[in-house]
């Protein structure tokens, strides 16, 4: 097993076989069915959607004058239109996301960036605006305001490729708020919020604050991204493990500690899943060794 030093990991993202992100994201997006969601709302639009009886209060601009004149009936013309279902991507760029085990194609942050870019491309292809925000990350990490268009994909990819992991979410307790508050203010009803994070070393109360994104008609999907090593704890013998955020070091006998670790990780998943589900969101878990296409498709299915 290749040993990875924490100090090196914190400097840059180990893209592994996931680079270049732009091409990989396109390939993933093309593998997923695009434009799978249509507007559920009827109202002002460009495509005729039929007639309905006039009810007081309806906008008189949509009153069908021909029907009134020919049939003396007050009918209102309705038009179908694809709703503005903006996609807000929240990518965890804290230091722990830089971890890459020996069985993963790249770091968790790289793999999350791939999924996020693919989701963005799919959404942009559907005409929906896509925004991007980071939790943590180096100072250079910059959020991408929600917008549509071909150039938005380039901006997304550029921001994802430029991201450098960093920050200790446990120490910087406001890192969640700094990311989520602008998003809450800007995301209107129907906005899809996809959070990609390992959910590790987040400050207390992060579950509640992230789950709260599912309120006000927003659709929340929390995708827990884990390295395969973090799932099955494959170490052997006496190991000395250092957390990637903070100075926590634990020395243990891996064979003895494995079962308890897996239980703890499962408890973490269940806690997040319960909280997110109760708020109406969806909780998913993915390993970085999994096929990104399948994971993106699963996310897309989750928001339908």
């Amino acid at each position: 097993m290749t040993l990875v030093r924490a100090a090196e990991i914190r400097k840059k993202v180990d893209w592994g076989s996931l680079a270049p992100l732009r091409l990989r994201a396109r390939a993933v997006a093309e593998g997923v069915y695009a434009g799978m969601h249509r507007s559920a709302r009827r109202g002002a639009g460009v495509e005729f959607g039929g007639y309905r009886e006039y009810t007081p209060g309806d906008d008189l601009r949509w009153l069908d004058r021909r029907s009134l004149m020919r049939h003396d009936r007050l009918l209102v013309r309705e038009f179908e239109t694809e709703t503005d279902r903006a996609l807000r991507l929240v990518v965890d760029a804290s230091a722990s996301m830089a971890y890459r085990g020996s069985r993963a194609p790249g770091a968790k942050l790289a793999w999350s960036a791939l999924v996020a870019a693919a989701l963005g491309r799919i959404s942009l292809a559907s005409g929906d605006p896509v925004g991007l925000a980071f939790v943590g990350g180096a100072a250079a990490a910059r959020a991408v305001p929600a917008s549509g268009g071909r150039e938005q994909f380039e901006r997304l990819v550029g921001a994802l490729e430029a991201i450098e992991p960093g920050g200790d979410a446990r120490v910087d307790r406001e890192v969640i708020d700094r990311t989520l508050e602008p998003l809450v203010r800007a995301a209107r009803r129907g906005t899809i919020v996809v959070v990609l994070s390992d959910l590790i070393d987040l400050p207390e109360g992060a579950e509640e604050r992230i789950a709260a994104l599912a309120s006000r008609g927003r659709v929340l999907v929390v995708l827990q991204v884990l390295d395969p090593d973090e799932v099955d704890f494959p170490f052997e013998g006496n190991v000395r493990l250092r957390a990637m955020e903070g100075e926590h070091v634990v020395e243990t006998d891996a064979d003895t500690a494995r079962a308890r670790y897996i239980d703890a990780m499962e408890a973490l998943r269940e806690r997040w899943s319960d909280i997110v589900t109760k708020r109406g969101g969806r909780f998913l878990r993915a390993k970085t060794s999994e096929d990104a296409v399948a994971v993106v498709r699963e996310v897309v299915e989750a928001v339908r």
Partner: protein
Amino acid sequence: MSFVTTLALAVALLVAVPYLAHRLRRRRAEERAFAPSRLVAPSPPTARRRSKLEDRALFATRALAIVALAVLGASPLVRCSRLSLQRSGGASVAIALVFDDSMSMRAEVGGKSRFARAQAGARELLASAREGDAVAVVLAGAPARVVLAATTDLGAARAAVDAIEQTDRATDLDGAIALARGLVATLPQIDRRVVVLSDLADGTPEAAPLGEGSAMPVWIALPELRVPASDCGIVAADRSGARVRVEIACGRGVTPNGRDVTIIDAKGATLVKEAAPATEHPEMWLAVPSDAPDDLVARLSPGDAIAADDVAPVVLEAGPAAIAVVGDTAGETAATGGAPIVEQALAALKLDVAVRPVPDVFDRAEDNRPFVGMILDDPPGLTPEQRRAIGSFFESGGVVLLALGPRAAAAPLGASLEPIVTRPISWSATNAKGGDPASAIGALAESAQSLDDLGAKHRAKLEPEDIAALDVMAKWSDGAPLVARRSVARGEAWIVTLPFAVDASDLTLRPAFLALLEGWIAAARERTAPRRSEVGGAWAFPGAQSVTIEGPTGPVATTRDGALLRASTDLVGRYRVNVDGRTEVRVAAPAAREIDVRPRAAAPTTGGSALGDDHAAVDVSSSIALLLLVILTVEMGLRLWTGRADTAVAAE
């Protein structure tokens, strides 16, 4: 130390290798990044702990194996602290071991007795002997005696050394060295030497250095034994009625100050206890109950360097051996201006004998019983009553020293000197020019030279029939007997053909006279055996058919010298002697001189490293190889056990 040896020993530095390997194996696990490490519980590092325990055992065995390999490579050049013989040119040597088994060797040095150290030293010396070496063993406990004549059978020598037991005898180093020298003097080995294993405490610390002037090299090994010790001991404990006389002897400058003398009965009950006087040679009188049992023991407590002499059985109605002296007291006193010359000589010899001048030979046999010997200085014959009493005295093993002079030659009618001399004697002038030193034997041999110019104008002349019955010990220069002896019944008579009066001859002024008295008293003690005698002395049982002796530690063997049964004592204590059905109790007491545990000086030549060494180059390769084999076996066992333990853990 050669380069090869140094190189081999340098291999021992490799002992650090398993240690370093052990440290590398046991180092802390390399730190690795792991994001969810806070979810990992710090479990007890059982694997590391197990490896630590097992590795320690493995490390110890492997380090031992490497050290053993290094020593094996350096052997046989490894030097051990043990006695060994040095030999010039690798030739065979002849050694006479003088082994001190005297009482002073009971003192401890380095936590064990000097005797045990000497015995170990003798074994070490024999271990360094090779085929072709000759070994003789002599014991220095007085009297010196040969344990093993010179032999090349090293197994017999080892057996002889192993069989040596500690005794309470006095020390006779000079005699033992002389014996040892004689044992190897004629051996074909060119390199001959005497090896002394002794503390040199023979009671004569001011005597000439041991080994000085010896023609044969004398090596006094084990210098660590020559340590002075303070000791006091009870040399006599005699009971007379309700009083017990206790005589204590101490070394020079040592007193029993602060110690107590206790009289204890057979059941261990204390009858009387008194503090010992603070003098070097105190004598105490202690009162015991009149109905006290006979088996009493005197004890000096608390203990000191030698415990064996702190306890002495109390002898009932005993005292120093008594010698009756019958002489012309008035005449000799007038001539010497003091006590008769014989009494003065006996006092000078300090032989622990009580000299009792008697005016005439006793007529009754019971009057002779208190005496072990009787000196008759020119008696004017013996009356029939006196002859019967003397005959009874001989029957009981008495010894008589008869000096013949003019009065003996002029015995009145009816008086004779029977049963000592059966024929009349004559007192006549002599032209003999002194004695013949070459004819002297026995006790007179050493000082016979002083008889060379013996001056006497007259001498007693014996009839040929009497001369034929005598065992001549010294002769005049013309061949006539000067000193002779003969056995009479169970006793013995010594005859001198000169009186002891100084106006008759100068015999009493010569060293040979003192030697004569000393030898005669020794014979008297040997034959009559007072109830208390010095340990190591021989008891003779003339005429006895059956003798059994029960000593302090068991039966004592007797030896038969012709028709004479003899026994000797090795330990102080009480002996029950059964002679032809008659039981008597005798006590062997320590020699006062042996209690002085000060070492005698040794000549500078006796410590030469050319004779032997305290450090030997011993070939221990076979032992080390065996040890290495054991270590490797243990190491394999440990590895096997470790493997099984790991398998069991994995199975769990």
